[in-house]
Every structure is written in C-alpha cells, then in structure tokens.
C-alpha cells in the first residue's frame, strides 16, 4: 500500500497535523481549545483514512465522532464551569512526581512501540514482498476524472453479512448507553419526583432542601 506522489505529500501533511493537534490537545489551557484541537486531530485522521482507501470510515468518523461526540464534549464543557483555569490561576498539570513518571514511561513506551512496529513490519515484508495495488480496477464517474469508491459497498456487505450479530449487540449497547446516560444525569429533584431515591437518603436531602418533600411522585 505504498503511497506515492501527491498522496505521500498529503499523507505527511495530515499525519503531522494530527500529531501536532493531538499534542496541543493535551497541552492547551482552555478546555474548549482542547476540544477544538481534538476536532482538528480527528479530521486529520479522517483524511488519513481516505488516503488508506477507507472513505466510508472517514465519513463515519467525521459525522459521528466529530459531529456527535465532540459536540457532546463541548456541551459538557459549557455545563461544567471551567472559568477558573482560563483566568490562569489553576494548575492544569498534576503534581511534579506524577508528570515526571508519566513522561518517562511515555518516552520509554515510544521507543518500545516504534521498535516493535519496525520489527513487525520487517517480518511482514518478508512475508509479502510485493503487495499489489488494486487501485486501477475502480469504476469511474461520469466525468471520468474521479474514482467512485466501493468502500461503502464493501463495508456494508461485510457488516450485515458476517458481522450482523455484533451489529445487533452494538445497537443494544447503544440502547443501554442511552438509558444509562439519562439515568446518570438526573438531578436529585428529578429522581425524587420519579420516586427513585432511597428513603434514608431522601430524608437527609429533605433536611437540606425542604422543597423536595413537596414533590409528588409522578410514577403510579
């Protein structure tokens, strides 16, 4: 899958952009900045997906990951007040010992992982010396200049044929996640009105907030 020419150029641009954006995500002071940097990192990775001929996944990444998950992050950042660190009085990094140990381990990890990748890849090269590029066999569009991807077709075929059970399980997982997130984000007032608070806890909370006692349970 050797890329060449413009593809190689774009590969390096987007790759370095992803790394750089990721670095800035971790180092930004403002949480919103972190989120925006993460978005750019994700978009860069999506571009890398396109270069790796996984166009469908790239689209999914941008739609779901960036369009859904990151927007959720931004909402939560808005809810959770982070003004203090903007003003610069708050530490953004942990205590020194933790950071030092982390950095050492991460550097060691870098070395280890890259070494592993090289070793593995050299083994792979022995196994498959000449991978053949399949790019030439793609259909062309009406104008003849671009190539319509078959990735979506392939992913769809595989997903619904061989991965149908995990697909269904994933949908159940999402259902559970929906229910769980709704339940986790309820306020005490909402829980009391749904009669979901343990009696002892309810007594304590009423002691703190007498308003709770007036709530009527809305479940029968």
């Amino acid at each position: 899958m050797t890329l060449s020419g413009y593809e190689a150029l774009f590969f390096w641009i987007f790759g370095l952009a992803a790394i750089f954006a990721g670095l800035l995500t971790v180092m930004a002071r403002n949480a919103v900045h972190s989120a925006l940097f993460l978005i750019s990192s994700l978009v860069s990775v999506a571009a890398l997906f396109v270069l790796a001929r996984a166009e469908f996944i790239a689209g999914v990444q941008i739609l779901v990951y960036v369009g859904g998950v990151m927007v959720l992050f931004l909402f939560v950042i808005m809810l959770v007040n982070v003004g203090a660190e903007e003003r610069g009085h708050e530490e953004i990094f942990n205590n020194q010992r933790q950071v030092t140990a982390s950095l050492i381990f991460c550097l060691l990890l870098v070395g280890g992982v890259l070494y592993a990748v090289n070793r593995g890849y050299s083994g792979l090269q022995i196994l498959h010396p000449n991978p053949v590029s399949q790019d030439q066999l793609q259909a062309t569009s009406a104008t003849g200049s671009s190539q319509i991807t078959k990735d979506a077709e392939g992913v769809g075929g595989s997903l619904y044929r061989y991965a149908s059970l995990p697909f269904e399980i994933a949908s159940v997982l999402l259902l559970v996640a929906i229910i769980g997130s709704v339940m986790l984000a309820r306020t005490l007032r909402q829980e009391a009105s749904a009669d979901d608070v343990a009696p002892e806890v309810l007594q304590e909370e009423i002691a703190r907030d007498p308003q709770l006692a007036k709530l009527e349970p809305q479940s029968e």
Partner: protein
Amino acid sequence: MQKYIWLVPLLPLIGAAINGLLGRKFRFSEPLIGGIAVGSVALSFLISVAAVYSYGFGGHAEWPKPYLTSQDGFSFNWIPGGAVSVNQGSEARIQIELQKNLEERLAAMTPEERSQTKGILVGASDSPRFALLNIEWSYQLDPLSSIFMLIVTGVGLCIFVFATGYMHGEAGFYRFFAYMGLFMFAMLVLVMGSNFVMMFVGWEGVGLCSYLLIGYYFDRQEAANASRKAFITNRIGDFGFALAIFGVIATFGSAQYTDVFNQAKGYPIELLGQWGILSWIALGLFVGACGKSAQLPLHVWLPDAMAGPTPVSALIHAATMVTAGLYMVTRTNVIFQHSQTMLLVVALVGAATAIFAATIGITQNDIKKVLAYSTVSQLGFMFMACGVGAFVIGIFHVMTHAFFKALMFLGAGSVIHGMHHEQDMRRMGGLKKYMPYTYWTFMAGWLAICGIIPFSGFWSKDEILWNAASTTHIPLGWLVWLIGTIAATCTAFYMTRLMAMTFWGRERFLEAPAGGEADEAHAAAFDKGLTQHDALRPSAGDRPRHEPGEHVGPVHEDVADHLATHGHGGHEHGAHRPHESPPSMWVPLAVLAVLAVIGGFVGIGPAFRTVTRSEHPGGRLNIVTWLNPVIWNPSTREFNAAEGVEAPVAETEHAAPPTEGAGHAETGASVYGQTGFNLAHSVEASTHSELATEWIFIIISLVVAGIGMLLGGLFYVWRPQLANIWAQRLRPLYVASYNKYWVDEFYGWAVTRRTMDAARAVYAFDSRIVDGIVNGLASLSRLFSRIVGGIDKYFVDGIVNTIAAFILRLMSPLFRAAQTGFAQNYALVMVLGLMVAVVIFFARDIF
C-alpha cells in the same frame, strides 16, 4: 378332581384377603363379609369332598397310593436347597446298607453255594452322604390328609355359619372373618402339605391366627394376655419341632414325606433304653405336639384362650388347631414306632394330661373353661391312643371329638348369647325350656362325650381304652388303661355337672342378679360417653360389647342393693330373659349333633364282629381300613399296618390274621420285646375268648361312664347340697383343683420371674459396665479435647496473634500508601504494566 385340591387352601385365603383388605375400606356389609367367608369355606369343602371321593371311591381310585399335586396338579419349587450333607443316623444307615449288601450277595449265589457258606464279609461305606435338598410347595392327598381336610372344612363350615350369627353387630366383623379365613388356609396347608416344611409353615400360621383370634378383643387386657400366652407357649413347642425337622433333613436328606418315610422304615427299631437318632427326632416332634395340642406341661394356654370369641374356641381350640399335634404324630408314626421310649413317653404324658385336666374341670364354674379342660383331657386321650400304637384310633377320636366338642362349644356359645353374655354356670339353670334347640343338640354332645353307645364318642373312646389295655408296643399299658378309665369317669361327671347346672334345675338367673351390675352401669356410662373404656376391668370371658341393660361380668357385690333397685329378679329388664338363638346359630348345631350321633359308625370296632360280620365293617368307609395305608407295621416293616383287613368275612376269630383295629397281634410282641404285664392278655387268659375280653372292657367303660353320670346327677340334680358338703370335706383337693394345681403360678415364679431377673441382671451389666466403659472413654476424650483446646487457644493463638500483629503494624503504613484515591496514579501503574508487557514480549530480541 384330585388335581384341584390346591384350590382347597387357596379359596379361604382369597376370602380372607378380600375381607381383610377391602372389608373396612369399602365398608362391606355383614351379609357380604359372611357370604364371602362362608362361601369360600363351603367351596373348599365341596372340592375336598369331591377330591376325596375321587381319590378313594371313584372309578379310578388312587387309594391307597398318596396323590401329590406335583404329579399333574399344582407344585412349585419353593426352596431350591442344593446339596446338603446328610450326617445323622449314620450307624443305622450303615446297618441298613450292610443288610442290603448281604441280601444281594445271598440272592446272587446259587442254592448250593448258599448252603456251603458260613459267613459273608460285607462292607459299607462310612463316608457322609450328600443329598439334593429341594423343598417344593405341593399338596398331598392321602388317607390321613383327606380325613383332616374333611374335618377342617366341614366342621369349619358349620362354625363359620354359626359365627355369622354370633358375631353379629361387631365392629370388627370383617377382621374376624379375615383371621378365620387365614386360619383355614394355614390349617389346610398344615394337613395337606407334602413335606415337613410346609407343615411347619401351617403350624406357625395356625399359631399366629390363634394369637390374632384370641386377642380379637384387643382392647381388653385379659384377651391380650391370653393371646400372648398362647403364642409364646406354642413357640416353645415350635422350637422342638424345628429341631426335629432339622434332624429329619440331616438324617434323611429330604423333607418330603414320601422320601423320608421310605427311608425311615428300614431303620432298626430303638427299644426301651436305646436312644438313637429316631428317638431324638420323635422327641422334638412330640415337644412340638405338646405345645400345639396343649399337653402337660405346655397346656396352660388353652384355658386362658377362652377369652377369645366362642366360635374361635370351637374351631381352633376344639376341632382343628389342637389336633394338629395329633396329625403330626400320626403322619410321622413311622418315626414314633421306631422308638419305644418315645411311645411310652407319649402314652404317659397323654394319660397324665387326661387325668390332670379332668380333675380340674370338675370344679370350674365358667362354662367355657369346663369345655376347655375337657378338650385338654380328650387330647390326652388321643395321645394315649397314639402312644400305645393305635394311631388310627387316635385319629378316629380326633374326628369324633371334633364333632361333639365343636358342637358343645357352639352350644355354649348359643347359651352365652342367649344369656346375654353370662358365662358363669352358677347363674344359669333351667335353660331347657328357653333354648330347646340348644338343649337337645347339647345333649347329643353330652352323651357322645360320656361315651354312651351308640353315640360317636363311645366308639372311639372304647377303642382307645381297649388298645391301651391290650397294647404290645409299650409296657405299662395297664396303667394307661387305668388312668384313662378314671379320666373317663371324671369326664362323665363334670359333663353331667355342666348339663345340670346349665339346662336342668331351677332358674338361678332369676334369683340372684345375673351378670355384673357394676359392669352394666359401666356399660351404660361408657355408651353415654361418661367414662373411658377400661381394659383392666375383669369380666366373664368373651363378650363383644355390652349394651345398656346387658348383664355381663361378675355378680354385683351388694345383692340386696341390686334387688332393691331392680326389683325381684329384675323382671323389668327385658334383657334378663334368655332366648333361643337365631337359625344361623342353631342350624350348625343341628348338623353337628347329627354328626355326633352317627359319626362313630365309621369306626365300629371288631368287638361287634358277630353282628357286623367283619372286623372292620364298611370296607373303605371304615376308618381303620381307610387309614391303615399310612400306618407302619413294625412286624412286617411296611406300611399298611394290618394285612388282610379288608376281608369282610372273618367268621372265625383266629383263622384270619388276628388284628384289632390298628393294634398288634402276638407277632407284634416279638418286635418290641417283652412289655411286661398285659392286662388284656391276662383277662383273656382267664376267659379264653378274645371276644369276651373285648366285651368285658366295653362293659367296664360303659359302667364307669354311667357311674360318672349318676354321680353328676346326684350331686347336681337330686341332692344339690351334696356338692358343697363334699367340697368342704375334700377341701384340700377342691382347692387344688379349683386353682388348677397352681401351675400358672409356678410357671410365673419359676420361669417368668426368673427370666425377668436374668433380663434385669443383663441390663444392669450392660448399663453399668458396658455403658460405663463407653461413657468413660467419652469422658476421657472430652478431657483430652479440653486440654488440647487450651493449648491451642492460649499458646498457639498467642503466638500467631503476636506475630501477625507485629507484621501488620510494620507493613500497614507501607501498603496504605498505595491507596491514594487518585485515579491517575492507578492509570500510571497500568501504563507501567503495559511497558513491562512490551519488554517481556521483546525480551529475546532486546537482551
């Protein structure tokens, strides 16, 4: 029809099973239960009659060969035994084998060789034999078992019919007939079995049913005690019987009658003083017979057994179960006749029992007890007959006794029923006009038992006494005759007494309060639910239940008070007046009375041969002719005791081989040696005529019977005050007789209490010594465990706690430091782990 004799025991069993298992559950009505029971016995009787007829009198009669159902009827392999070592009686067997070898050698030689032979050396093996023991369940129809089949089913049928009337109103009606049917089954197995083991099964079965039936009124202490006593006494006899069966199997290698008796007849006879294996076997058998047939010293259970209902007394303790001992002795007469000592023992025990029981019966006041002691006495007579060698006459007396004793028991039951369960004769009297059927039938029984010609009892009793006087089997025949005659006198006396006190004379139940008023009050209160049932309350024998106004039990203490409250004689109470029994009760009485009158004609003795022109008139219907094939003749050493008995024309007295019943001619004397003084021979020596001798003895027995009856009439009809006067004059004898010679008390002291003492001693040993050891060991274990526990608790735990506490104090702060609660620390440790994994993965390459 013979093939179907296996149905004969089975039908009563089925009837009993239906009644017993379903009778209460489905609440059968009394007619249904009675119908099933009576019907099953009636069917059995019919089949028995048909089978016996076809066996003995039909076109292709098999008589006298015994018919076994294993031939073509019913048989199954009950106990496949396998090889048994036959290790008893080997000397006798060696003798027989030597004899057989000698005869074979002699037969194989030519006559001149024989005359030149001076002696022959023969050998016999000494090694133990082995036999293949196989105990089967098959029935045997032969002259002896056929008589018993007919008696058991026939008399049993009459008693069953009687019982449907007598037990009317009982709550346990179904239970009674279930037990009775079971009894019939067991008794029939006993008499029809083809081997000793089946007989033993029937033996035990009738013992069990006797227990169940005597204890029928299980809520009364008296009945429960009596049933236990009967069973235990029976069991003592059964022990001897079982040992005898073991001896039979060990000597003959088989339990089948045919095999055993064929072998036994070749054994040498053991004379008086010689005691061999056959004597041992006979001893064991006789011990069993003593237990079952209530001979001295195991007679104690029979009088107490009167606590059961009267039909039970009639069936079991008069007609059938107690005669099982006689059946057994007659069946094994080969073995008994091989042992002169045992014959003497049997005769003497029988004679002693006869006189013993007869003297007790004179003083008893309970009507059933009199009949019970009479039964014991008559059984003594039967054993006397067997002891002197007249087995056929013994069985003949069994038959006639079954008729008249069952008749009298049922008559007594009718009287008791009519008197509303009063059993004390002192409160009866003059019942003749109230209960005519009962009276006339009872009179037939009375005349029969006294031995008046031509009633049945005369024929059998007279033959017994004649055979005792003229026996050549044992010495002391004259003594047996004398005791028997005295006992016959006593029998006549007390039976006349019974008749007089019950049926003749003035009606004493009108003068004194008849029946226990205390019991009546108790009965009334019990029915109202005011008092509890009292099992220990003494009462007058068997009574199913008392109704208010019913007079039961002993007389009220305060006669005057009773008369005052109830008026003179209590005529207000309708229950006072005795009444005749319903037809279901007097019809069997009539049947039995007819049999008691004419039943003796099957045994008309040879004394009447001038009239009947035959020694034993009637051909095969004569009991002697019929039973001879099962009686062994010691002189010919074969069965069929007397040769030529069937010859009807025996005009001359001495031309034909002289035989008298199953007695023995002079030739028999040589078999048993000199038997001392023989009364009949000495009488004959003076009269020079056998016929005259026989007639002299007949006259004597009639005369003594007449004397007894006259004395009874004198003491109880014409001069009633004489009874008390003589009782005072002979006070010691009277007291001894009234208290039954204190036998029960003696047994209680000598046997029962000593056994209980032994039991207490063993218990003390067990509880103090054995348990003491065990408890001591347990205490030791507990002490040891406490010591070890202390060591563990204070020493070991102390060490552990100290060391553990020390380590904990040391290490705790260290380990606590890892719990920072800070998730990123934990994540850092995870990354460290990841690194370690990577390093390990590539360890080979890096280092």
